């Protein structure tokens, strides 16, 4: 049996799949349930300095090829989130996702996440539907550099940057993460999108703009990882439309050493982690890949 263990820099994972930020990860008990379903690690909901109810409903809907959402970064705030971390951290590897308006916010949040026992922080530089946050700070390489630098000098745990595909300078942003000492890049977040109701002649989401996830975005994500692999040397984590082992294998061969699953939890249930693990393992046996690392970037050769 091929080994599914992998590592993202200094973080060793028994299994290569994690839950993507925003999916069943707002509470400690939810995070534990995901860990017990076969995920190698969990990424928390993106947490900010203050409690945030997010955007009004509708903030989610099914579309052909996936989902759109404009949750608007709902979270209880970093202080209260400590209680959830207390429940989750003893049960497995928890990566703390955080969002802020600039270097200072991110540093404060990262320090708290480290105190709570997060094994890494994931900087949300990519949410496409929150004004002043996410991709609004994550598409400027200088801003990205200053945020990553500030967080790096504030904590000793690894710092991952989650990037947006909604830019033509993805590799420059990736290089900025690397130059600032970032430990890994997570790509992609959702594609900025909109859905209009012809009957009501208006955008359906209360926020008007939203982000597209699911099957439809996978080729975009695979391309993003492939591009980043050519541009940086730090580890890459692939995310976007993964719902089966083939999808995971594509991301790994594009250059990812681990991956995250989001929307497929809605369509396939938490069983998706076990299914991907089994399928990937069988594929690796049949094709003679003894380890995840031997597959990473295979499509570049």
């Amino acid at each position, binding site marked *: 049996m091929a080994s599914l263990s992998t590592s993202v820099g200094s973080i060793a994972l028994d299994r290569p799949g994690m839950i993507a930020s925003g999916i069943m990860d707002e509470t400690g008990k939810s995070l534990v349930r995901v860990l017990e379903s076969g995920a190698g690690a969990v990424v928390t909901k993106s947490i900010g300095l203050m*409690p945030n*109810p997010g955007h009004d409903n509708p903030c989610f809907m099914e579309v052909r090829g996936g989902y759109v959402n404009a949750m608007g970064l709902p979270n209880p705030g970093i202080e209260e989130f400590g209680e959830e971390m207390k429940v989750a951290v003893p049960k497995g590897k928890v990566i703390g996702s955080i969002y802020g308006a600039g270097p200072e916010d991110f540093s404060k949040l990262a320090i708290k996440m480290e105190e709570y026992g997060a094994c890494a922080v994931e900087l949300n530089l990519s949410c496409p539907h929150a004004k002043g946050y996410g991709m609004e700070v994550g598409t400027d390489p200088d801003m990205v550099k200053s945020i990553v630098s500030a967080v790096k000098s504030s904590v000793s745990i690894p710092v991952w940057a989650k990037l947006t595909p909604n830019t033509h300078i993805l590799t420059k942003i990736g290089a900025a993460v690397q130059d600032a000492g970032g430990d890994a890049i997570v790509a992609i977040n959702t594609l900025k999108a909109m859905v209009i109701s012809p*009957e009501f002649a208006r955008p359906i989401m209360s926020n008007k703009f939203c982000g597209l996830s699911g099957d439809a975005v996978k080729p975009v994500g695979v391309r993003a990882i492939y591009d980043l692999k050519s541009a940086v040397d730090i580890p890459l984590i692939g995310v976007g439309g993964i719902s089966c082992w083939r999808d995971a294998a594509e991301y790994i061969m594009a250059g990812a050493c681990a991956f995250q699953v989001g929307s497929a939890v809605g369509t396939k249930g938490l069983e998706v982690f076990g299914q991907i693990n089994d399928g990937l393992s069988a594929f690796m046996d049949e094709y003679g890949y003894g380890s995840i690392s031997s597959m990473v970037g295979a499509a570049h050769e």
Partner: protein
Amino acid sequence: MSDIVIIKEIIQEAYDTKTFVFDWDAKVRPGQFIMVWIPGTDEIPMSVSGISDSTKSITVKAIGEATRRLHEFKVGDRLSIRGPFGNGFDLADDNILIIGGGVGTAAIMPAVVQTGADTIIAARSDKDLIMLDTARKHSKNVWIATDDGSAGFHGNAVQLMKEKLKDRSYRYIVACGPEVMLYFTYKACQELDQDCQLSMERYMKCGAGVCGCCVMDDMRICKDGPVFKKDQISKLKEFGVSNRDACGRVHNFR
């Protein structure tokens, strides 16, 4: 995917409660719910209160901005809905007792229609009772409880349930209503060693099991529920104790 449906009938159930019947041929099980979009206001989960092959209905009590706006909708107006979502009731046995409290009666009505089982409908007073005619059409025993005694049994749903269980036995209880009613229904079922299935509620965003905001412990109301069986409920420490707001902050009931 969202569906656009046309309202074909509106039934005034009580002074503050209306049933909206619309054409929709989706397959829906008793106990499932849909997300209803009220453009410019909100999107809210609503139990499906009536099921036929070609039509479905929701029963709406005007208690907030979104539900008051919904009450302004007329026959011929269009609704944008998503769903159906959730697991629904397990109605494999028809020797069951069905209990609806307040507007929770809407959620259990398709189960009454499908099984014709004995039914308790409870409300604060006679003017708050809803869907009695539908229940009586399908079930030969429809018992009423009102808190103020203005109709039927003077007392709450749980007290009447305990009375009925003195000389009748059922495979299980099916109930939907305010959480305090469900909590004491569950407590009574524990005391009496009586099986039950309860339909729960929490603040909801996606409806599809993705965002995780409607959890009670580690169970998503929208996807793992809204109906939970007794052995599942026994593991829910937050049931009857606390819920979470839109930010995900915990609020204790007492």
